[in-house]
Structures are given as structure tokens and as C-alpha cells.
């Protein structure tokens, strides 16, 4: 297995990181700098499609994919 340091596109910006295998959960963990995502009130879309949390582990990411990581925010 080779290490890949590549650019991903998260929340409208390029994001570089090294991943053994480009799975969504690993990518989110690195992006958030957290080892456990259990408590994080976030949701994720890949290419404008919501990916349920239980699918993150097995969801492979391609380098062209557009990833959105969102959370509740102040709103009216």
C-alpha cells in the first residue's frame, strides 16, 4: 500500500493530507484534527449528496470530489 499525499477539495478550499487509503472518515478526522468524531455534530456531503455517518468508513474519496463538512450555526 502506498502513501498518498494529495489535494482534496473541502468546504471550497484545497486541503492536502496524507492518507493510506482515501476513505471519507479518515479524511474528516484529519481535517478536524480529531481522533473521535462521535461527539461532533457535523454532517457531510460529497458531490452534493449527503453521506450518512455510518457510511463514512467505507466511502472512498476521489481527488476530484467536492466535500462539504457542515455544522449548525447562528441563524434566523
Amino acid at each position, binding site marked *: 500500500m502506498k502513501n498518498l499525499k494529495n489535494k482534496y477539495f473541502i*468546504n*471550497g478550499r484545497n486541503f492536502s493530507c496524507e492518507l493510506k487509503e482515501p476513505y471519507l472518515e479518515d479524511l474528516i478526522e484529519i*481535517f*478536524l*484534527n480529531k481522533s473521535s468524531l462521535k461527539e*461532533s*455534530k*457535523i*454532517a*457531510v*456531503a460529497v458531490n*452534493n*449528496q*449527503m453521506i*450518512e*455517518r455510518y457510511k463514512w468508513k467505507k466511502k472512498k474519496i476521489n481527488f476530484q470530489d467536492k466535500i*462539504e*463538512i*457542515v*455544522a*449548525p*450555526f*447562528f*441563524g*434566523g
Partner: protein
Amino acid sequence: MKSDYLVIDGKKFNSRLIMGTSLYPNLDVMNKSLEISETQIITVAIRRLNLSSKGFFLDQLNKDYYFLPNTAGCFTQKEAILTAELARETLQTNWIKLELISDKEMLLPDPIELFDTCKSLVKKNFRVFVYCSDDPILCKRLEDLGCEIVMPLVSPIGSGLGVRNEHNLEIIRKICSGKIFVDAGIGKPSDASRIMEMGFDGVLLNSSVARSLDPINMANAMKLAVISGRLGYKSGIIERRNMASESTSFKGKISNF
């Protein structure tokens, strides 16, 4: 008066005031305003995670609330549905405040896109709280579609103009048998009170409190206005007449000079 709960989706609420969480001068003022308002439901937006911010927005709330996530800023059905799905995933709620606007200047709802989007969201088992224009027929059609709460504006978002078309609101209240809130345009506590006196089920507001000089006191004023208006409505407001009707009887008057 007997208990007068607001029941939404099988849940009972004491408060009929739904508060937004945006535009407050700071977190402390927001928390105190929410607390004094005694609101139980607050609206939140769904936005890209900002790693440079101090923490998660939800962690900064001092109390537990029911969350009503919104689709603020969405212009298309696709955007709104994805936002609703992300909201459901992150907050574990089927509730969604559907905002689907047509322009950035007036922030007016796009009724055609809105109607189709409501259809899709209802099919996907969302409880839709739909922000819409004050068109009685549109409100009725949205209600018939299965929206949980229909929420006509009284004037543009954040305008503070208050009720601009009372006649339309009266018709909406008359022809819609379900729950109707008013969302957007409230400026003064008397606006909120007036709406509740008309028999609306609740008031959703944000700017009128958050942008006031003293949001905490204004939140308190809005709470009292909503309670007062509701109590007035439930107590049976007298009919309006064009002519006077004496409150003191003429009977027994000493004489007619």
C-alpha cells in the same frame, strides 16, 4: 385559562415564541435573550464548518432547546433539499424551516420553487415549517400539501416593517385550519401581539430582538407581547362596530334636559 399548549409533531410547548440565533452582539447577550424569552424552539442555520471559530455553536448555548434548522440562503430546490438532509443528519431532527428565496435584495420567497420543494421534503418525511409569502391561496395549498406549519411573512426579512397586509393575514387565518405562525418582518412587540390576537399560533422572530438596543429587554417584551396577544385571542375579542355602543346604560339617568 386552561392549559394552552402549542403542540407540534406530538410535542407540547408552553411558549409560542420561536427565536432566531443570529445577529446578537455577542454570545452572552444571545444566551440571556433566549433565556428571558422563555422560548423552547430556536432556529439555526447549516453552514460550512469553520475551524478557526472558538467552538461548535451548539456547545455555546446555555440551555437545551428544540432546534429548528433552516435552509437560509437557498435559491433552488436542490440546495434546499441537500441542506435539509444535512440538517437532519447533524441535528437528528425531521424539522426543517424551509426558506427558498428568489433574490438577495428583498429575500422574498420564490413561491413556485417553494411549492415543489415542499412536495419533495414532505415525501422525504420532513416536518416542514415553510416560510412563504402572505398569499392566502398559497398558504392553503402548502397546508394541504402536508406542511407542519405554514409561516407567512408580514413584511420582508429583517425589515421591521410589521404587518403590511392585515387583510391577507385575516384570510389566511380563516381558510387555514392548521397551525400558522408568522415569520419575518416583526419590528415591535405590538406587531407580535397583534398577530397573536388574530389567532395565529406562534411568532418567529430574530432581528427585532437581536438588533434592538437592548436585546435582553426586547426579548422579554416580545415574550409578554406574544402571551398577551394569545390571551386576548383566547378570551374572545369583541366584534368591531362602526358606531358607538354605550358601556354605561342610559337607564336610570336623572333626566333629559
